[in-house]
């Protein structure tokens, strides 16, 4: 039996998850800020931050989509043991994990309904680095404007136009996380 899969979960789930959620919530409430997210040791290619996010937010109630390289035996086994989320196609997912290229096209994901805009997918986008430079962000949670590096501009502008429907994004790299909800207006700085 491969015992590697048993490793990498939270050491003290209630406390680790509480700190992780606070970082995730601060990131979502204040787009463009970078928070530290630690606790999980997921198998490659999943980053510490993305693994921690999955442990904090996902469970058997949340269908999960693994995109591209992230849909591999190791990750599936780790998700199955530690989280129990059903791994599904993009169309049926509440959460999705992958690189920006692998997650495209975004039109596959649920954007919610006019009556229930919360029934939309949350995408966890793995990036090489999270840099606070590049696009200018404005909107709720941002005092004036902040800058943040994003994989592209147009997709997020299109997403914001769907408001109150739309997708919400977490960006992860190593043990860092930042977020971009559907309310944020993205412009080329």
């Amino acid at each position, binding site marked *: 039996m491969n015992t590697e899969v048993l490793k990498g979960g939270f050491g003290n789930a209630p406390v680790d998850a509480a700190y992780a959620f606070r970082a995730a919530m601060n990131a*979502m409430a204040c787009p463009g800020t970078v928070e530290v997210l630690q606790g999980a040791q997921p198998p490659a290619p999943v980053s510490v931050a993305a693994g921690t996010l999955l442990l904090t937010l996902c469970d058997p109630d949340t269908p999960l989509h693994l995109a591209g390289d992230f849909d591999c035996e190791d990750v599936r086994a780790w998700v199955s043991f530690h989280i129990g989320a059903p791994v599904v196609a993009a169309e049926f997912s509440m959460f999705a994990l992958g690189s920006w290229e692998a997650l495209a096209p975004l039109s596959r994901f649920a954007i919610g309904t006019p009556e229930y805009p919360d029934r939309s997918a949350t995408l966890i986008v793995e990036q090489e680095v999270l840099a606070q430079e590049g696009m200018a962000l404005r909107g709720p949670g941002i005092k004036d404007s902040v800058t943040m590096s994003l994989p592209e501009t147009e997709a997020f502008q299109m997403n914001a136009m769907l408001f109150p429907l739309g997708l919400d994004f977490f960006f992860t790299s190593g043990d860092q996380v930042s977020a971009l909800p559907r309310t944020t207006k993205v412009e080329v700085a």
Partner: protein
Amino acid sequence: MSDYNFAYLDEQTKRMIRRAILKGLAIPGYQVPFASREMPMPYGWGTGGVQVSAATLTPADTLKVIDQGADDTTNAVSIRKFFEKTAGVATTEETGAASIIQTRHRIPEEDLREDQILVYQVPIPEPLRFLEPSEIETRKMHSLEEYGLMHVKLYEDIAKHGAIATSYAYPVKVEGRYVMDPSPIPKFDNPKMEMAAIQLFGAGREQRIYALPPYCKVVSLDFEDFPFEASKADHACDMCGATDSYLDEVIMDDSGGRMFVCSDTDYCTGRRQAGHIGAQAAAASAALEETAV
């Protein structure tokens, strides 16, 4: 610590609430349905706020609980004790020292910071509920941004009373989209909702969570010729002399005696410690000195 799971709720419940909070922050003012749990206190005692606080607390937090601005009323004391027992967190009565503040029907007078979180207890989260009893209808009205009925209600106030008579739970529009019930805070507090702290709203019986990220645009509904006015009792605090705080009127005796005091007890205490003194407090201490002589 205790034999409870950290902050009472089980982990799967917390994950469900946390997902609702994140969607709430992503769609400011929209009421996210959640599977509210039975709590060891009756509905109406802040079960929604307690569940949101439980899902948000970390062991490093310092919790403050207020009820109508006061730290020392039954509801505030029992919720503070609940989290001391089940989460082992530090508690405080000082607004500035708290990282999470759970509140019933007030926003503290002191400006909140970016590193603070304000959790509201909400009885009826749906601002349109008293105008339209059907959830199916109100949900459709929100989806179509059909808020004419609310303006009719405010207009009828003016037609009947000559002014907008709604003085608490005064409806607001968030980011130009969702009309939201700010919970039964006095309308005096409405302008404070554009703040630096994260605001989370929990309605336990009604099973709804909603949220406002920092610096979110929150506009109180009004008319051009009847603009919104954040009103309070036209008086200074009789204990600390503050003229800028929201006041409670307290009946003192059977012969019409009364006094006005800050509803925010921490604010009032802080001012008195700093040497400010109100009319009745001054009179009382003068009387005391006279008896001593």
